[in-house]
């Protein structure tokens, strides 16, 4: 008896999927975060400017975001497992070919483009399949999976440095590529849920409305519309609101890590203590993710309310952070920021699933990542501009905090909208016992 997508296991094999997603997060995002260690080596070797070298990471991040919708539409057509394995092979090839290090353009193509595509094809389905496997415990599962990024990033820093010192940057790239090949192992573990609509023939026989036997299957039926990439999502106000929230949040998320180090130096804190700040950030981030997952699992608060709270708490920490004037205060505020950042990241994918519903989740995830990336591109330059105008790094933190408060506003509007719709549907039909608000509305449309 294979598990169905409409009736997720909420445990059992799902935990295997969570562990493999945990590892995928580590082997993708954590590698990207730690790639900065290769910068100086590559820059010096090819005799290039720092800005030219930094294009490598820009390309990786850009391809990662642009590839997300492609990856999610491929997930729907082929399985998550296939896409993740493909991603693993692409990421591996990117790093392994980077070993040959012919010239800068070669590095752009390999460690930039191929790696970005590989990361995108691995990360997107991994995140998505966890949500498919769980419903009641989805928040906890997503939180645990996302914590993989922190756990691996923490160890990769010293590990990559050691690799570079032993094998040089070229050898290190080769070995890291091999390590990334383990993404394929994780992909192999991601058994697809037998959603009856992934086999087209099943779906066609269930198109007759009104028969009580297919009442349950109507939930499965909606995937037909979303077999290919779904732009119809943009017509849904809930998705648009959440996407705007995503843009504003992304605008602010990339700013604090950028300016924390310069701010720390400007306060007179030296290199090793500043490095410890980053370690503190990674550790509390990890703790925040797990704690938020556990709390959300208690189902005491609605996920969207929880997200709004965490966003508010991050923006408070960011607004307070500029008040720090020595290492201890900076460390404390950084700790708060990191912790609430972790809680936000842990919960925001679960909220997306709650906003759009599982049938459209895959396309929504891809599209959301794509739209959110605009915020990520606009944020750092805008913050840099503000810092230059104000002449102080603290301005960057104020900007990030303000953007987050604005994004929380959109969450509030979204919540109101959802509540209004729910009230409306309650009046018209008997409420169905499901954790997702949407299926009841779908049933309505088919009458």
């Amino acid at each position, binding site marked *: 008896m294979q598990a169905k997508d409409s009736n997720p296991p909420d445990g059992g094999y799902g935990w295997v999927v969570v562990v493999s997603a945990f590892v995928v997060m580590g082997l993708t995002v954590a590698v990207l975060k730690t790639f900065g260690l290769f910068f100086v080596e590559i820059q010096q*070797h090819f005799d290039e400017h720092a800005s030219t070298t930094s294009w490598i990471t820009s390309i990786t991040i850009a391809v990662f975001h642009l590839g997300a919708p492609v990856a999610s539409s491929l997930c729907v057509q082929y399985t998550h497992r296939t896409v993740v394995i493909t991603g693993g092979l692409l990421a591996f090839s990117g790093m392994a070919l980077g*070993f040959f290090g012919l010239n800068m353009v070669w590095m752009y193509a390999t460690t930039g483009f191929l790696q970005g595509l590989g990361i995108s094809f691995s990360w997107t389905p991994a995140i998505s399949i966890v949500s498919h496997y769980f419903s009641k415990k989805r928040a906890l599962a997503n939180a645990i999976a996302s914590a993989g990024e922190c756990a691996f990033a923490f160890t990769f820093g010293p590990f990559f440095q050691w690799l570079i010192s032993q094998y040089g940057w070229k*050898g290190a790239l080769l070995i890291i590529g091999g390590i990334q090949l383990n993404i394929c192992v994780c992909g192999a573990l991601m058994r697809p849920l037998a959603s009856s609509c992934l086999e087209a023939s099943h779906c066609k026989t269930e198109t007759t409305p009104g028969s009580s036997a297919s009442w349950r299957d109507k939930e499965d039926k909606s995937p037909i519309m979303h077999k290919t990439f779904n732009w119809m999502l943009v017509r849904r106000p809930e998705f648009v609101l959440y996407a705007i929230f995503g843009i504003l949040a992304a605008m602010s998320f990339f700013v604090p890590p950028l300016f924390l180090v310069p701010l720390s130096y400007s306060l007179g804190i030296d290199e090793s203590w500043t490095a410890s700040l980053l370690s503190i950030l990674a550790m509390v981030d990890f703790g925040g993710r797990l704690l938020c997952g556990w709390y959300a699992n208690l189902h005491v608060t609605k996920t969207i309310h929880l997200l709004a709270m965490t966003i508010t708490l991050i923006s408070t920490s960011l607004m307070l952070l500029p008040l720090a004037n020595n290492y201890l205060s900076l460390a404390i505020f950084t700790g708060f920021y990191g912790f609430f950042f972790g809680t936000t990241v842990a919960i925001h994918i679960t909220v997306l699933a709650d906003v759009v519903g599982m049938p459209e989740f895959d396309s929504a995830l891809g599209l959301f990542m794509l739209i959110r990336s605009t915020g990520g591109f606009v944020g750092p330059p805008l913050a840099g501009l503000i810092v230059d105008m104000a002449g102080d790094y603290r301005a960057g933190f104020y900007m990030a905090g303000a953007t987050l408060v604005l994004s929380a506003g959109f969450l509030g509007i979204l919540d109101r909208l959802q509540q209004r719709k729910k009230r409306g549907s309650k009046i018209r039909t008997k409420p169905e016992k499901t954790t997702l608000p949407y299926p009841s509305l779908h049933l309505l449309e088919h009458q």
Partner: protein
Amino acid sequence: LTVGVSRTPLQKNVSLASPTKIELTCKLEENSNLKNPQVTWKRGSETISHTNKTQNSWTIQLTISDSSQLGSYSCILKGEVEVSATFHLQVPHIEGKEKPIITYEGDLAVMVCKTEYVPVAWTWYMTNGTELVAINPSSHTNKFQFKRQSANVNRLEILKLTKEDNGIYWCEAAFRLGSSKRRFELRVLSIMAPLKPFVAVVAEVVILVTTIALYEVYSKRKEK
């Protein structure tokens, strides 16, 4: 150059590239415990008479014309307690990579030297046993290449590396007041070095994927 004198011994490094006249000043902090101290400027055991004295600062003027005049000059303030500050006059340092440079056979090695001031000449040496042998760029053009990226940055590229190129290299920047050197360690590895762990990891992946695939086929057959 002024140094505020307080409890802890102060040092300052001054880089000088060419002959110049320089003034060194020791200034007493406003709320210091010392009142009207006796001040002497010394270089080693030799005392120098200070040329200028104001209410709470003491200055000497020096003309540095060759490397023998470089060194450490201290001002010593004697009162109830004794405090001193030292200026270290030296040739400019060279910045470069401290950790060993790791490259592969057949590949290209890069060593970059950077200084604050423009030197008169750059020379690169390789070590032959304990001797330093200067590298002559014109005699080995397909092996060694010098690239002058700017006046104060010099770059040595060693092409077609072999195991024999392993060793210590020196970059020397000659200034009018002396020269300064920087040490680089070059390690040439064979391609097999990173290939071993790489193949080990790939083998592990293949084994795991095969195991998982076989297990799934087995459990599906069991279900049927």
